[in-house]
């Protein structure tokens, strides 16, 4: 395994030196490429009610759902290594006349192992005053790392579950209709945040049960909710580190030539007599 990996790396590196920029351009996944033939996939208009039934969404795809106040709404999206995901939610509250007081809404993000992930910034919990018409929530995750210690809680590539719910409200307001809108965006952080190492498979529940071992029948089928980012998981070998390293090599070569030139001095050395 390791030998194969090393070989692969070497071959990749070799190939990259020759065709980095060109292939990178051709390879860079465009969000609509996969679905341009049959049009954009319709934005989800429903939300799931548990981890198991979470509705799959894609980055940059707005998802809406009509629900009752008090429902727990779940969505799931794929986030790959090197990406920093931001989830935004807007809840259109029931008419102020029907409500009895302030309500606190909360947006939680869980990783593929259902571990709660911290938000680095963004208003994750917000209280809507009794008279306000909507409440906006936002959560920006840490940059997803390609690998982490099993004992760490670092975000890893895989499914990310978004849970939206009201956490505090006057009891009389339970069950009133609300409209919610959720949108997740991912930003590439570039080579500065790259770590090496890799997971055997992204943290997607049922990744193993989808291809059962010989002779083993998986107990309770799990649906692989989010079907990976466009272009597949961690398929990109492009990173701005190629540019840094190549420029570094070029600079070293130029500096070497410059240094060599310095030792030659300018023109003929003065201590050599003319005509010698």
């Amino acid at each position, binding site marked *: 395994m390791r030998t194969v990996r090393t070989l692969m790396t070497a071959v990749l590196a070799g190939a990259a030196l020759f065709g980095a920029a060109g292939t990178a351009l051709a390879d860079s996944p465009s969000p609509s490429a996969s679905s341009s033939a049959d049009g954009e996939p319709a934005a989800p208009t429903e939300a799931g009610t548990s981890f198991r039934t979470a509705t799959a969404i894609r980055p940059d795809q707005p998802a809406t759902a009509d629900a009752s106040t008090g429902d727990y709404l779940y969505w799931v999206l794929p986030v790959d290594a090197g990406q920093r995901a931001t989830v935004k939610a807007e809840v259109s509250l029931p008419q102020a006349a029907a409500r009895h007081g302030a309500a606190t809404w909360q947006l939680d993000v869980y990783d593929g192992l259902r571990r709660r992930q911290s938000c680095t910034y963004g208003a994750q919990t917000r209280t809507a005053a009794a008279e306000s018409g909507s409440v906006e929530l936002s959560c920006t995750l840490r940059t997803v790392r390609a690998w982490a210690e099993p004992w760490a809680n670092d975000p890893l590539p895989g499914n990310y579950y978004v849970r939206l719910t009201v956490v505090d409200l006057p009891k009389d307001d339970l069950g009133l209709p609300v409209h919610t809108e959720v949108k997740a965006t991912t930003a590439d952080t570039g080579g500065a945040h790259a770590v090496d*190492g890799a997971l055997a498979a992204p943290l997607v529940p049922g990744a193993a*049960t989808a291809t059962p071992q010989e002779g083993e029948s998986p107990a309770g089928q799990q649906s692989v909710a989010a079907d990976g980012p466009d272009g597949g998981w961690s398929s990109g070998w492009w990173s701005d580190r190629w540019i840094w390293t190549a420029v570094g090599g070029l600079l070293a070569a130029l500096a070497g030539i410059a240094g060599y030139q310095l030792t030659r001095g300018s023109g003929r050395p003065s201590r050599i007599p003319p005509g010698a």
Partner: protein
Amino acid sequence: MITRKRLAAGVCGLLAAMTVMLAPTPASAGEPDAKSSPKVELTLDVSGSMRARDIDGQSRMAAAKQAFNEVLDAVPDDVQLGIRTLGANYRGEDRKVGCKDTRQLYPVGPLDRTEAKTAVATLTPTGWTPIGPALLGAADDLKGGDASRRIVLITDGEDTCAPLDPCQVARDIAAKGIHLTVDTLGLLPDAKTRNQLSCIAEATGGTYTSVEHTKQLRDRVHQLVDRAARPAATPVATQGAGQCAGAPQLKPGLYSDREKFAEHRWYRVDVRPGQELRASVSIAADRAVNNDYGVLLRASTVHGREIVRGAEAGDGRTDVISSGLRYPKPPSEAADDDGTPAAETVCLQVSNSFSAPASVKTDPGLPVELTVDLVDGPSDASDAAFLGLGHGWWLLITLALTGLVAGLLWGWISRWRVTVWRTN
């Protein structure tokens, strides 16, 4: 590795697509697969209070009938739908008789829309509100098969048949491990009705809606029926043990269990060298619990040494609290002699720190959902990031300086050699 997975996934997807393309043939033959198609029972309150004319100017009964008609028109084909009434027949004052008044109006099965609509049209608001017995009846109607089940309960008043607490009934039904969800809708509910209905919904992982308009009723029932039709994994019931020694052996999959307050349970998973164990657990708060709570998932060896743990704590209103862990077992070098290396038994311990006021019943326990995954190939780490490529200004400066020094040295050496050659 991943590429291989993706290829496999692609093949699976292709197969799935082919299956879907082939599927309509048997389905159009009029025989939906009774084993796996989801079942829904609409349970409608037909008590006397449904006569009140306060939903969009019409009676609650008329609103419900109108909503039912529209919903019946749009029921997905693969859903088996039944209708049950409560309080539809007995007009008398005898509470004992009135509280038994629940009846299946239309049996759960492939839907004949005209027949179902005719049955609904005959309903007139009549009697009591026996919610508890109706839930028991509905759970009985939905028996059989292993698909998801859903009861949609529509009522305008609280249960009038104490001491049978419908909330406790719902929890007992859910504890049977038959994947049953109860969604409740209250028509212009008062505080007591709302408390009772939201308690029923909470006990089964369902939702509660308060309805004020006909359109809202129709949309919500429609949404709930559609939700039942969406495919979802159904967990396999298991029962964890008090200690690792007698714990059930789990294969990769999705499991459900029940765990009492502040109890812990053990499960066992076999992990071969070179595999990564991934487990996550969710414990649902299906009743009134105290404000602060937590969950701990721990993997340890059979000798009790802790390998890794996942823990989470929280407070306030929640449906579940969950945590997870992963344990990559390094490939063993000694494995090559006898072919298959011995698997290590990992003990998984699931414990919760929920607590509840003394008035809350602790039996049955809280619902536990446990997922176990075994992934081939443990995760790999190395200290060089991204193929060992570099990044940043320091790299450029270092490389440039090294180049400069190398150039100078080269120049001096060649000059020195020229001088030596000239001197000789």
